[in-house]
């Protein structure tokens, strides 16, 4: 089984990434940064794609909504995928706007039949327009979305089981939500169909809020904490398909070697999980 390990492409990491492609299997690029980018920047992205496998990651479509994603937004993703030929593309199970109000970031929608149905409809349209179904990512949230009538593992499973989209399982989002809302992240993982886990995100975060009401914020500015590697090993033991594992870092950048060491630690965690899986199967 050939798992892949890579980094999120950020301008301040570009030199470090390009200098270490022998230690990086794949690069994840934020698609939205290129929708209206000048020709030279899109050409640079194609050049990157010629040097290393690229996966495109969307942040603004708003797939998990009872409202249909606008066709023009899906057309932009389709054009970029045509240009770059990524190995995959992904979006979040989030809503990002409502009634003309732009939230400006990812928000967890109410976990209800309406957003399950809406997400499935949006993912079908996305597959039709882009040509390939996106992987879908679980999001972190600081608030349990009002109007929710089911837990997150149930909601995510319903969406992936009724669409062609596999799960991009963000383990820090899962870790943060499990702490903020007091559920067992291992139970969550075991309730996801293991054959539908296709990719993993790793990141870090920080505590915010009053001491008596604090929350763990997924901020992509800190190192991956130990519990996330433990969850990664668990996923390595249960996922039946090759995984693409991406380390996300959006700022407070350490030396590239520090990030590569975290990537190596991720490789070891998945390898331990794979070994456990093989031992059970033998």
């Amino acid at each position: 089984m050939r798992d892949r390990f890579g980094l999120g492409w950020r301008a301040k990491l570009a030199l470090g990434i390009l200098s270490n492609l022998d230690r990086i299997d794949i690069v994840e690029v934020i698609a939205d940064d290129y929708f209206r980018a000048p020709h030279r920047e899109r050409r640079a992205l194609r050049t990157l794609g010629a040097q290393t496998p690229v996966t495109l990651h969307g942040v603004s479509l708003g797939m998990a909504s009872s409202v249909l994603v606008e066709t023009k937004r899906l057309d932009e993703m389709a054009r970029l995928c045509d240009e770059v030929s990524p190995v995959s593309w992904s979006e979040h199970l989030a809503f990002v706007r409502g009634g003309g109000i732009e939230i400006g970031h990812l928000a967890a929608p109410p976990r209800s039949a309406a957003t399950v149905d809406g997400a499935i409809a949006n993912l079908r349209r996305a597959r039709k327009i882009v040509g390939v179904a996106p992987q879908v990512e679980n999001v972190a949230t600081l608030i349990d979305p009002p109007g929710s009538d089911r837990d997150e593992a149930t909601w995510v499973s319903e969406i992936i089981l009724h669409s062609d989209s596999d799960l991009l399982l963000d383990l820090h989002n899962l870790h943060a939500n499990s702490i903020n809302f007091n559920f067992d992240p291992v139970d969550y993982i075991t309730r996801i169909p293991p054959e539908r886990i296709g990719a993993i995100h790793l990141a870090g975060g920080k505590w915010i809020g009053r001491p008596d009401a604090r929350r763990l914020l997924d901020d992509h500015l800190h190192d991956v904490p130990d519990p996330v590697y433990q969850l990664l090993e668990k996923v390595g033991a249960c996922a039946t398909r090759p995984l693409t594992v991406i380390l996300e870092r959006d700022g407070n950048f350490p030396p590239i070697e520090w990030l590569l060491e975290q990537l190596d630690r991720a490789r070891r965690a998945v390898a331990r999980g794979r070994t456990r899986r093989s031992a059970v199967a033998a």
Partner: protein
Amino acid sequence: MNDSRLETFLAGIYVDPGARAKFLANPRGEATRAGLTAQQVEDVIKIDRDGLELLADSLERKRHGRK
């Protein structure tokens, strides 16, 4: 239709300080005025206020590129 109204309502109180203040001052009244169903009104008035303030602050920081 009512599901999109709920998303619109949530988007408003997440990003608009004025809408959020009105809601926190009169949760049932504002939710009803927004046309939410009776069940949705009951859901939103039980909102986690600490979480709402933290989320709103986090979204504000992200929109302005602050960490």
